[in-house]
Structures are given as structure tokens and as C-alpha cells.
């Protein structure tokens, strides 16, 4: 088996058994990352990664993650390594510190090989809003990998790394995971420190892993959760994240979200999800239809709350302390206007304007205030559902990977890509997407969500289903 086909768990075992070295593993992945046919990467640190791998190989006792390479979404700060968040306004920027979640993984022995492409400031669902050009879907290079963490998903699907980190505000981990046929996990809001994550919408943003197996995703999450004094919203974590072993689902009640299984969902996607959910019964669990009566307000609610928050968060990009600065402005106002006008792309400007409007005097109550109240109803819908079931399920994305350019002229049609993931995000719940089949030769993702802090239950159900579904397909040209 090629080194790039190993899961992280297999690689750690092989390194532990002395069959391969971290240096071998990092070298093999760097070769695929450097020949980047999918434009997954915005920066690659070959020298640093190899040096670190050799250092780990020389340790008398290897760290738990043993030198397995990882790619990091470019929204996460990495000391001295270019970090742009997919924006011209940060081109060339090198952070002076490393995000806590990345530092924790490095401490545990993961080796960062590079930074992955993304929609500018995580605003988008296709990676086409990257100022540096989109990543491509390894299953079909004429199609999008999803977004916003598109490069983190394509890198794992294309076996440039066994796993990666993304961030998820309204679906930015789960949707690209679904479109690229891999696993993507958004933890409970506050589970992972966001110190060093370039903020988009602070009441929603959360960091999480991409991997090719549920257990690999759990391995990464294990090392990242828990309170960080540098992020006041990070939570004390109640119990360690366990590596899931469950093979059965006896007594587990899975709620099928009725509103997300009907209109607006491609028939092929619906069929693949329904077939996957049949395994719940075969494994001893039950399927329970559930309703989330306010779920269909989710998208509108999100597109008020997220732009409002981003309009405040993105005020920091002023061309004074870091990043792009427009030359020769006559005065401060002109400096701001030109710097931000030149530095931000169209979608970012659209959302800043929308958010500023939603927060403005006279409109605040009708838009932002009203959206926060609808958010309460959506949270209550989930709470009611979890009185009847242990986890809820739906498709992750209403469609399979769509062609490049298909939705770029119509922002609303792009926003609809996240219709299944957004309600879960608004409620702050942990949620995972696992590959569950193909439709027209392209992967379909099944989304599962659990109550807050229910990561262990979620991973356990996802693991049992993953094994039963037995998704073995690979993009064409990827062996086996």
C-alpha cells in the first residue's frame, strides 16, 4: 500500500512498529502536495515539515501523533508561515503566533506541511471566493470541492495528507467533506479554542477535523478540545474524546429530519441517505421521523446573524498593523476606503454591507434582533427533537459537487448549498458528515448531529454506520 493511502491511525501504528519513519511519511505526502493538481494549498512548508519529521524520528519516545503530516486551513494562524484566509488583504502576512488548536496538535506530534485554500474569510460554499483561485474536486476537476474549507477537503480526498483542519461557521467543514467523499466534524460550539482563528462570525465559528475515517477525526479532536485561557468562549470539556469502537446501534434512536429529506434535496442524494439510514435498523437502532418546524427559517436567520458579526470582525483589516495597504492615500478615510476596496473580494464586501445594514439604527430590531429570536426557536426545535431521539440525521448537502461557475453569479443559490448544515450551526451542536454513497458517480454525505457535548455518542454512531455503509469508492485514478 502506498504511504499516502494509509489512514493516520494506520500510519501511527506503522511508525510505532518501526515499519516506516515519520520522514518517509512526510516526504511521500509532500510530493503529492507539491504537485498540487487540485490547488489544495496556498503555502507549503517542506523544509520545516521535514525538519520536524526528522526531529520526531530521533526521539527516544515518539509523541502520540508520531509525525503524521497535517494540512491547516489558511484561516488558522501559524507562526511565520503565510496566513491569508484566502484574501488579498492578507497576502504575504506571517502571523506572530500559532493558533492554540494547531499548537496542541504539533505538541502531540502532528507535522504541519502547509496551509489550505478557502473561500475568502470563510465566506462561501465552493472555494471559488478564494482570491487565489478555487481548489478543484478530486472526484471531478471540473467541479467545486465545496467550501469554505475547500482546500482542506480536497487535500484529504486527494491523499495529499491523511487529515486536515478546517473551520465551520454554517457548514464549512461538513459540506466540503460531503462533496469530496470524506469525513468532516464540526464540534460543539466552544469545544475547540479559536485563539488564532481569523474570526468570521463569532457566535458560530468552530474549528474541526477532516479525515478519511471517523476514528482519525476522533484522534484529532481528542487532542484539541478543552479550555484555553486565550479564548474566553472555549469550554471545560466534560469527558475525554474516546476512539469509537461501536459496531452495533442497539437501542439508539436516530431522528430523520423530515424537512431536510424532501423538496430541494436532489433525488440521488436523498436515495443515498435513505439507503445509508436503513443500516441503522440492521444494526439494532430505530429510525424516528422528526420535525424541526423552524428549520426553514435557518438560512434567512444565518444570513442576518453571520454578516452582522462579520461586519464587526472584519473592521480590524485596516492596512495599518498588517496586510495590504493602499499606496499614497491623501488622508485616513481615503486610506481605509482604498485599502479595503482593493483588499476585499465581492462576497466579503456584500456581507459586510449586509451586516452593517442589519445592525443599523432603525433596522436592528427588525433584522438582527428578529434573527436572534428565530435562533432561539431553532435551538428549542432541536431540544424537543432530542427528547425523542439520540442523534438526528439528514443529507449534509442538498446536492453533489456542482460544476465550477454554476452558482457564482447568484449569491442566493450559493447560500442554499448550506441549507442542511446551517440549522445545526445556529444551535451550536456537534455534527459530522460521513460519506454514504454515490450519486451520478459523485460522493454524497450523511449529516449526523447530537446534543451539545455529545461528541462521543456522535462519533460512536458515525463509526458504526461508516462500517456498515462500507464506502470504499475513490476518485478515478486513485488506485484500488
Amino acid at each position, binding site marked *: 500500500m502506498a504511504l499516502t493511502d494509509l489512514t493516520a491511525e494506520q500510519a501511527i501504528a506503522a511508525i510505532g512498529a518501526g515499519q516506516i519513519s515519520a520522514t518517509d511519511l512526510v516526504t511521500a505526502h509532500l510530493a503529492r502536495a507539491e504537485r498540487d493538481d487540485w490547488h489544495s494549498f496556498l503555502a507549503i512548508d517542506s523544509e520545516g515539515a521535514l525538519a520536524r519529521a526528522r526531529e520526531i524520528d530521533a526521539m527516544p519516545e515518539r509523541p502520540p501523533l508520531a509525525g503524521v503530516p497535517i494540512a491547516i486551513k489558511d484561516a488558522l494562524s501559524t507562526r511565520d508561515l503565510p496566513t491569508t484566509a484566502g484574501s488579498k488583504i492578507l497576502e504575504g502576512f*506571517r502571523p506572530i503566533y500559532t493558533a492554540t488548536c494547531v499548537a496542541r496538535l504539533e505538541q502531540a506530534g502532528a507535522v504541519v506541511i502547509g496551509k489550505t485554500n478557502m473561500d475568502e474569510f470563510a465566506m462561501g460554499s465552493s472555494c471559488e471566493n478564494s482570491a487565489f483561485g478555487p481548489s478543484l474536486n478530486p472526484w471531478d476537476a471540473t467541479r467545486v470541492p465545496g467550501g469554505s474549507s475547500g482546500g482542506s477537503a480536497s487535500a484529504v480526498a486527494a491523499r495529499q495528507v491523511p487529515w486536515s483542519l478546517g473551520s465551520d461557521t454554517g457548514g464549512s467543514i461538513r459540506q466540503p467533506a460531503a462533496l469530496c467523499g470524506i469525513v468532516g466534524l464540526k464540534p460543539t460550539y*466552544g469545544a475547540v479554542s479559536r485563539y488564532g482563528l481569523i474570526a468570521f462570525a463569532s457566535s458560530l465559528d468552530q474549528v474541526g477535523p477532516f479525515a478519511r475515517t471517523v476514528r482519525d477525526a476522533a484522534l484529532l479532536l481528542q487532542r484539541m478540545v478543552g479550555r484555553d485561557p486565550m479564548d474566553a468562549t472555549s469550554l471545560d470539556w466534560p469527558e475525554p474524546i474516546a476512539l469509537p469502537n461501536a459496531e452495533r446501534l442497539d437501542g439508539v434512536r436516530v431522528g430523520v429530519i423530515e424537512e431536510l429529506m424532501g423538496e430541494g434535496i436532489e433525488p440521488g442524494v436523498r436515495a443515498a441517505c435513505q439507503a445509508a439510514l436503513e443500516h441503522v435498523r440492521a444494526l439494532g437502532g430505530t429510525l424516528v421521523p422528526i420535525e424541526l418546524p423552524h428549520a426553514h427559517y435557518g438560512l434567512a436567520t444565518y444570513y442576518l446573524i453571520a454578516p452582522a458579526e462579520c461586519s464587526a470582525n472584519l473592521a480590524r483589516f485596516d492596512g495599518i498593523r498588517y496586510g495590504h495597504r493602499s499606496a499614497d492615500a491623501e488622508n485616513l478615510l481615503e486610506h481605509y476606503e482604498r485599502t479595503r476596496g482593493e483588499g476585499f473580494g465581492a462576497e466579503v464586501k456584500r456581507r459586510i454591507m449586509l451586516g452593517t445594514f442589519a445592525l443599523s439604527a432603525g433596522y436592528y430590531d427588525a433584522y438582527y434582533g428578529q434573527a436572534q429570536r428565530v435562533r432561539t426557536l431553532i435551538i428549542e426545535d432541536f431540544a424537543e427533537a432530542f427528547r425523542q431521539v439520540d442523534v438526528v440525521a439528514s443529507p449534509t448537502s442538498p446536492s453533489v459537487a456542482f460544476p465550477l461557475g454554476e452558482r457564482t453569479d447568484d449569491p442566493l443559490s450559493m447560500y442554499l448549498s448550506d441549507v442542511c448544515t446551517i440549522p445545526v450551526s445556529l444551535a451550536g451542536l456537534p455534527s459530522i458528515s460521513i460519506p454514504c454513497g454515490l450519486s451520478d458517480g459523485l460522493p454524497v454525505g450523511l449529516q449526523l448531529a447530537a446534543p451539545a457535548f455529545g461528541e462521543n455518542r456522535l462519533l460512536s454512531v458515525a463509526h458504526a454506520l461508516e462500517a456498515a455503509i462500507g464506502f470504499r469508492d475513490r476518485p478515478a485514478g486513485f488506485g484500488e
Partner: protein
Amino acid sequence: MQDELSAILEYVDQVQELDLGAVVPTTHAIPLENVFRDDVPKPSVPAELALREAPEVLAGGFAVPRMG
């Protein structure tokens, strides 16, 4: 851009159709009390490092265009 913003506003307008007088707005999905820490002085970022990424530095500070 103007047309796109109008279309988006028209779409998000659907939140207005709900009567939500008594519903408490959510600011934070996971309940969280205020978080405090002791106010202890500790070393901070050295000035040189803080200025490293600045597009323009003047006399040990960030250069800012004149106000008016």
C-alpha cells in the same frame, strides 16, 4: 451588487413573518457565564515583533495617514 443585495434582503425578510414578541433572543448557543481571570501582569509581545507585519512603520510605531 445592488440587485444582489436587494434579492438577499428580500429573502431574509421572511424572518419578519413570525410574531416573536415573547421569545428571548439568543446571543450564544451554549450557555456560558462570564469568564474572569486574575489581573496579573505578564510579558507581552515585544514591540519589534508586533511591528514586523506592519506595511509602514514610523519611529517605532504604526504609521497612519493624516486624519483630514
